[in-house]
Structures are given as C-alpha cells and as structure tokens.
C-alpha cells in the first residue's frame, strides 16, 4: 500500500523544533502515523528496530516449540501445536511487513538477525527438553507476550498497530492451549505433575525477564512512551503478569519457584498485588549477549533454513524472469 518512492522524501529531514513539536502534537492527539507521513528519523529507527526485533522473536520462537511437533503425545495436541507454531511464522511475516513499510527489506532484517546484530526475545534461548515445556511456553511465554502486545494494538504507528490487532486476535488460543496442557499434567500422574513443576521452575524467571530491564535501567523506554510506541513500562507490565499468573498456578496446584512471593494489599494503589523476588540480571544480560544455552543453536537453525532455501528462492526468481521474457517474446511475435 505504501509507495516506496515517497519514503524519506519531503521536509521531514530538517527536523526543526517546529517539526518535532508538530509531530509530537499529532501523537498526543492520538493520531496514527502512517508510513509515508513525515516522521523524525529517530522515530523511524526506533520502530524499525523494535518491529524487527519483534518479528525475529516470532521466527526464532518457532524453534523451541517446533522441537516437539513430531513428538506431540496425541493427534489433537500435534495439530494444535503445529497450527500454533505456524501462527508464529505468520506473526513474524505480518511484523516484517509492517517494518517494510518503513523502507527496510525483509532480506536486510534477516541478515541482521543471522549476523547477530539484531536481537530477539531472550526467552527463546532456553531449551525445551520435556513436553511440559510446550505447555509452559504457551501459558507463561505467550501470557507474557500478550501483556506486551495488547497495548501495542494502540501503538502510534498504524501498520504496527494493525499487525498487532491481527496477532492478538490469532494468539487468543495460544495461551489457552498452553494452560490446558499444563493443567492436564497437573491433574495427571505424579510423574506428570513433577514434569510440570520442573518446567515451571525453569521457565518462571526467564518469563519475568521477558519484560526487559527495570524501568530505571531501560534506555529506550521514556522516548518510546512519549511517542506512544509503548503504553506501559516494563515494570508495570511485569507486575500485571505476576498478579495474573500466580492465581492460575495456585488453581492447578503448582508452586511458583519464588520464596519471596507474597501478597501485598498495599500494592497497585491499594488494589493489592504480589511482591516478588529479585531477578537475576546477570543471567538476563548473559543470555541477551549470546551466552544462553540455546543462542548458538537457534541462530544456526535460522541460518541453515536461510542458506538451504537460497537455491529455491533463486529458482523462483529465475523462473519468473523466464516467464516474463517468454511473454514479451510471444507478444512481439504476435505483433
């Protein structure tokens, strides 16, 4: 929908005080910004980075769950999981599309991911050694993602907001699918319960880290809030997630692995909420910087898909060129 020719043209390059003030006024008035609109370079760059990261997270996120498609325990679980992982691919595709309206190509973004320059959600650098992890990813990881994504449906950048509306609508089954798996395990044999608890123990803290560093340590947060790319801070969303998830764990008899977890009636302006223990930020940064258990495997798998697919993509392009050539020749011959 977006003529690439117009991007980057016009008066936006000057970025005078007046221009920036006018732009901020549009944002404050809850106007959506569309791809060809004049926008500050930093706004564009922030969006390209954030939407790109978001897209990469969906694509890399296919791998830990994809690990269990061929081993899912029943036909029903197999179909649901395959449909879910397929959805993640779709979400990556919608998001790449949204970023492409800003004048960056999917190929460029892919190269950034494969070279390690672009980041993706650190959660996907943890392994899925048991079937319970598939339930846990759906329940906790998708649950945390939904907390993040629902506000993004109102993001100031139109294509991102529209992509997120679609993503959120489709994701509605993902968390339920995960919780149902975990619930079934929790209601099952001792071995199954143990499998579920072990998995919760491994995923709980990484899930909390998905919301990113504390507000005080988050470099991009303030400006993104001002531009209404973000609507809530990292800590606000993390608190919401804990408050929503703890009762869900209690309901099925699983124990959150946090000795400091305690109900605090004063929290959330007197509405009550949970106090919880300190996150291990050393671990967080280690995983973000490439030191997680699965970082190398994830990138290696994406690289293999990209490299092994090159001849297919090239063949399709070559065939399209041949067809155009033949059509042109046939036309000349007919004239």
């Amino acid at each position, binding site marked *: 929908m977006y003529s690439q020719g117009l991007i980057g043209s016009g008066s936006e390059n000057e970025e005078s005080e007046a221009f920036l003030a006018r732009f901020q006024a549009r944002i404050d008035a809850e106007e959506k910004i569309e791809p060809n609109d004049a926008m500050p370079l930093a706004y564009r760059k922030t969006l390209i980075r954030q939407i790109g990261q978001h897209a990469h997270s969906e694509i890399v996120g296919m791998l830990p769950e994809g690990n269990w498609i061929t081993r899912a325990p029943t*036909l029903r*679980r197999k179909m649901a999981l395959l449909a879910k992982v397929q959805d993640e691919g779709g979400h990556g595709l919608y998001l*790449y599309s949204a970023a492409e309206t800003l004048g960056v190509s999917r190929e460029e973004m892919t190269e950034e991911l494969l070279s390690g320059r672009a980041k993706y959600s650190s959660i996907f650098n943890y392994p899925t050694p048991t079937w319970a992890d598939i339930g846990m990813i759906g329940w906790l990881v998708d649950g945390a993602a939904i907390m993040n994504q629902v506000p993004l449906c109102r993001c100031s950048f139109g294509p991102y907001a529209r992509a997120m509306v679609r993503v959120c609508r489709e994701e509605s089954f993902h968390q339920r699918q995960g919780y149902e798996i975990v619930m079934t395990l929790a209601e099952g044999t001792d071995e199954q319960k143990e499998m579920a608890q072990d998995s919760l123990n491994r995923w709980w803290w990484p899930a909390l880290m998905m919301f990113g560093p504390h507000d005080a340590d988050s470099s991009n947060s303030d400006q993104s809030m001002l531009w209404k790319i973000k609507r809530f801070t990292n800590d606000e969303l993390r608190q919401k997630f804990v408050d929503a998830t703890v009762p869900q764990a209690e309901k099925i008899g699983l124990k959150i692995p946090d000795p400091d977890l305690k109900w605090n009636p004063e929290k959330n302006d007197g509405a009550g909420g949970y106090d919880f223990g300190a996150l291990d930020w050393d671990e967080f940064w280690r995983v973000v910087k490439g030191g997680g258990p699965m970082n190398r495997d994830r990138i290696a798998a994406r690289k293999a898909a990209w490299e092994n697919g090159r001849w297919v993509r090239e063949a399709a392009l070559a065939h399209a060129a041949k067809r155009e050539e033949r059509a042109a020749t046939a036309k000349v011959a007919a004239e």
Partner: protein
Amino acid sequence: MTYAQPIKTAFVETLITLGDDHLILGHRLSEWCGHAPMLEEDLSLPNMALDLLGQANNLYSYAAELEGEGRSEDDIAFLRNARQYRNLLLVERPNGDFAHTVLRQLYFAAAMQPFWQATLNCSDERLNGFAGKAVKELATHIRHCGEWVIRLGDGTDESAQRMRKAVEELHIYTDELFQPNAAMRICVEAGLIADPAAQRDIWNTTIATIFKDAFLQVPEIAFPQQGGREGLHTEALGHLLSELQYMQRTYPGMTW
C-alpha cells in the same frame, strides 16, 4: 452404518491404511515448520500437513468406532509397531530437499485427489464426508506443489538438477499408489471405496502436464518399490515412529 464380517474387518483395516498414509505424510511435512526456504512456505507446508493430519484423525476415529474394541484414534496412531503400519513407502521417505518434498506431495495428491473424487460415489456416508473435504484440500496441494515443481524444474541450473534427482529417487515409489492391499480390494468390491488402481490414468495426465512445463522426463522404472501396504517398510519409518511414539511409549497409559 453397520457392517457384517468379513467386510467390517476389511473396512477397518482400509480406514487405518488410508489414515496411515495421511498421518505419516503429515508428520513428514510438519518437520519443515520453522525451517522452510522462505517464510511464506513456513505457512504453506504446515497448512498441507494440517489437512493431512485432520484426515488421519477422522479416518482413525471412524476405524476405532467401527471396530468397537475400545481403541481410540490415538491408540491406533501411536501404539502399533512398524510392521503394522500400512502406509505407502512414498510417504515415509525422508524430506530431502525442497524439491523432494514438493514432488512427493504432488505424487501423493495427484493420486489421492481422483481417488477421493471417485469415492464420493461410494456407499458409506461418513467416508463420503471425509472424501468431500479431501477432494478440495488435495486440489490445493496439487496446485501449490505443481507450481513449485514447474518453478524448480524450469528455474536455475541447480534447481533443475535437484528436481531431476528428486524424480529419479522418488518415482520408483509411485507404482504402489495404484496397488490396493487385500483389505482395500474387498472394500472396492463392496463399493465402499474407489479402486486406487483406476486412478492411474488421471495421475499420469496430471504428472505429464506438470512435467512438460517443468522440462522433466517421466523415467522408466526398472525396479518399482512397494511393500508399505503389507507393512514391509523402508528403514526410514522406524525412525519416524520413534519420534512419533516417543511420549506414548515412554509414559504409557497417561492422559495428555
């Protein structure tokens, strides 16, 4: 519907045979999810896999009901040994590269689509329902994979060479598409399913049309391979089953 012996046993076995084809091929396609040559195919391949797994689920469920011995569709899908699976050798062959995968899918869909179409005229209402769904689903598989076979066959030198190799390696398994086993033959006689052998001409035409555009030759086959319909499989199936059955075998009798 209720069926008397020996039709009943033959029909149950036939439903399971067809279910096995769909399960095993769906399983193979699902292995691609997250590893496809482009993101668009990461959605297309699972779509085809989900069509096949859905059919397997339907066929096994119906078989389990007819059989009436308390087995569930999952018991049938997950709890048999390799010699008891009746799927075609073609569908158990490893994915290979993208050329192998789209060609295998085309070979299967081009035989099964007319089979289901003809089965619409048969007498079992429930199976007709499955057939009606399958006819449409497989038409899209033929279209999608046919388009890819043409693009790869008439793309670059490398893709053409890979496509020719896929034909050379997979064509030997295509005779079996038209060879019903004893149970299936009883069902054909009883008017419950169409005759797989009768679909060969349509299949030949579909493949020839696509191969012409793809600059591919239909090879002469010296030693066609078959055996899956009798439970005699290649070594690939055992490894596939060890993944497919891992949970059910490791944790017997649990609910998931």
